[in-house]
């Protein structure tokens, strides 16, 4: 029998990052996939110092939430082996599992050695074996890394568990509203506030390298576009024209922002050069033109326009020229966002007063509606294209939801209080 195994040593540097757990955050899978692959994540054995994160729980939640896997509940496991030689594959075959993961965590003061093995339950083949080291504050990151490795091994696609999201929360404190722009891990943990204002903050957009966020602030009681560097907190006002300054979107090379301005009349799409603040006007209509988003190759921009009477999506070359209409079904198609490979376009689609998230296949131009909400908005693709994050309304409250791009699986990220809107998945 030939076993191909890779035992890799991945050292994650200890950081001073303080782990702020998401207070009151719940992740709820609201729609499970029928075709999900069964996988058992056996609780990892623990030796030595105990960390504040259960690695196997995070991996289980990541994989279960991806829509591709159905994880086995701990109470249904007949045994909980942590070493390869202790695994009796028959126990897992009878439970209908296809794959299983076992592991150990050895705590040694401030650092943790994590080891895990992934098996095919049907033939007992070891598919993957890894060892990694993580600091006490990096256990969630290490767990997401493990999820990425397993996901890529079994699906052939890169995982997106170690990524971040940005979103805007609003809450009332003693009658006064407070808006916060926050950045968190993709599963909602470790939220950090990067801007806070009593006036609205909106439309966060990531730079392609993930180091900056552009957003709109109304703190002067007018709209203004800022670009903020995450590492330093330093922010720069890049657009404060008369009228609307809105809907910023970074070009794929990070040098320009597509924005909406109404300084010359009705809202139109402009391209702002971030180095010299030079403006190029891209659309010139009496209609509303807004919500620009770049194609990943940087050659064209998709935007919402009501030049035909109702809002629909159009595509225009960045070099200028005529816009081509992309959407024809339904009376409302807005806020297009490309997947990283440019093959799909997520949008808000409205019919009869109900707004849902849909994805257009760019090659065939067919549109697939993914969600069944009434007030779904702000779609944003995961960097690997596997899921679309969006804002939904549940019981009169805005929450974040994610749906797999085949629509089979949906999960909800709910915060304890306040509204959460305008999500943007980091590249």
């Amino acid at each position, binding site marked *: *029998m030939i*076993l191909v*195994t*890779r035992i*890799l*040593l*991945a*050292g*994650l*540097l200890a*950081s001073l*990052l303080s782990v702020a757990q998401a207070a009151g955050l719940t992740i709820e899978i609201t729609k499970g996939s029928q075709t999900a692959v069964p996988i058992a994540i056996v609780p990892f054995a623990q030796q030595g110092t105990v960390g504040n994160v259960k690695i196997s729980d995070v991996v289980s939640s990541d994989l279960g939430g991806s829509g591709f896997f159905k994880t086995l509940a701990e109470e249904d496991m007949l045994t909980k082996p942590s070493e*390869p*030689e202790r*695994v009796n*594959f028959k126990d897992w075959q009878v439970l209908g599992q296809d794959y299983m993961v076992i592991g150990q965590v050895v705590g040694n003061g401030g650092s943790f050695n994590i080891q895990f093995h992934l098996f095919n339950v049907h033939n*007992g083949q070891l598919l993957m*074996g890894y060892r990694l080291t993580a600091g006490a504050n*990096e256990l969630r*990151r290490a767990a997401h890394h493990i999820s990425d490795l397993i996901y890529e091994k079994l699906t052939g696609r890169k995982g997106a568990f170690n990524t*971040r999201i940005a979103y805007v929360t609003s809450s009332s404190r003693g009658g006064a509203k407070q808006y916060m722009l926050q*950045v968190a891990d993709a599963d909602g943990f470790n939220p*950090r*506030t*990067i*801007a*806070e*204002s*009593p*006036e609205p903050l*909106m*439309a966060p957009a990531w730079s392609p390298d*993930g*180091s900056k966020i552009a957003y709109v602030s*109304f*703190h*002067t009681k*007018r*709209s203004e576009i800022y670009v903020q560097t*995450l*590492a*330093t907190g330093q*922010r720069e006002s890049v657009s404060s024209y008369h*009228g*609307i300054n809105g*809907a910023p979107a970074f070009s794929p090379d990070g040098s320009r922002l597509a924005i*909406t301005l109404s300084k010359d009349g*009705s*809202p139109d799409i402009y391209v702002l050069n971030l180095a010299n603040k030079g403006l190029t006007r891209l659309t010139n209509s009496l209609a*509303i033109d807004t*919500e620009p988003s770049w194609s990943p190759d940087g050659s064209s921009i998709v935007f*919402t326009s009501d030049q035909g009477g109702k*809002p629909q999506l159009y595509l225009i070359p960045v070099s200028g020229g005529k816009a081509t209409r992309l959407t024809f079904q339904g009376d409302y198609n*807005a*806020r297009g966002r490309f997947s990283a490979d440019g093959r799909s376009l997520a949008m808000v689609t*409205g019919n009869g*007063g109900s*707004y849902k998230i849909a994805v257009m296949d760019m090659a065939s131009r067919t549109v697939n509606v993914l969600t069944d909400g009434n007030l779904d*908005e702000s779609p944003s693709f995961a960097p690997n294209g596997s899921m679309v994050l969006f804002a939904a309304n549940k019981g*009169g409250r805005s929450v974040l939801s994610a749906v797999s791009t085949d629509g089979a699986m949906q999960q909800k990220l709910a915060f304890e209080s306040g509204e959460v809107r305008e999500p943007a998945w980091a590249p």
Partner: protein
Amino acid sequence: MKFNKTCLALAMTAVFLTTGCSSTDEQDAGLADASQGTDASTSGLSDGSMSGSQFGSGSGMSSGSHLGPEFSDPNNPLSKQTIYFELDSSQVKQEYVPVVAAHASYLASHPNQHVILAGHADERGSSEYNIALGEQRAKSVERMMKSQGVTAAQLEIVSYGEEKPAVSGSGESAWQQNRRVEVGYQ
């Protein structure tokens, strides 16, 4: 079957031991992977030092505190400072024409008085499109006021789209109250 399993376990232990100490190739692959992990940690570090910042509140002028008693007389159209709109429409409804006219006439006779026309939309549809819709509503009111002698210098427009609902919650009654232009005396 049973034999196979034992065999598997033994083989694995063997691989484990050898790769664990001597397989430099795989160690290298591991290091490459590790450096990826380090990148992630580095960006994590920058997250850690990510400084949030508080925007101060705006100019904070209280609206209308210096206005005359006609603004608080419920029988005077000047007491109405909110103009409501139909779904997806920026046309001033007939019932609000006298309200806009009353404010226009007051402003025309008080040329030093400024107002901010704040346009709003209900929560349905996408937020940036709603910003545009709110601006169109404010511009409709602005046009009517200008046609009645109010100067451009007296008027300022801002649109908050669906970001500042007057009434929270969903449903037609909330939406009706949120599709509006507020006339704010400065």
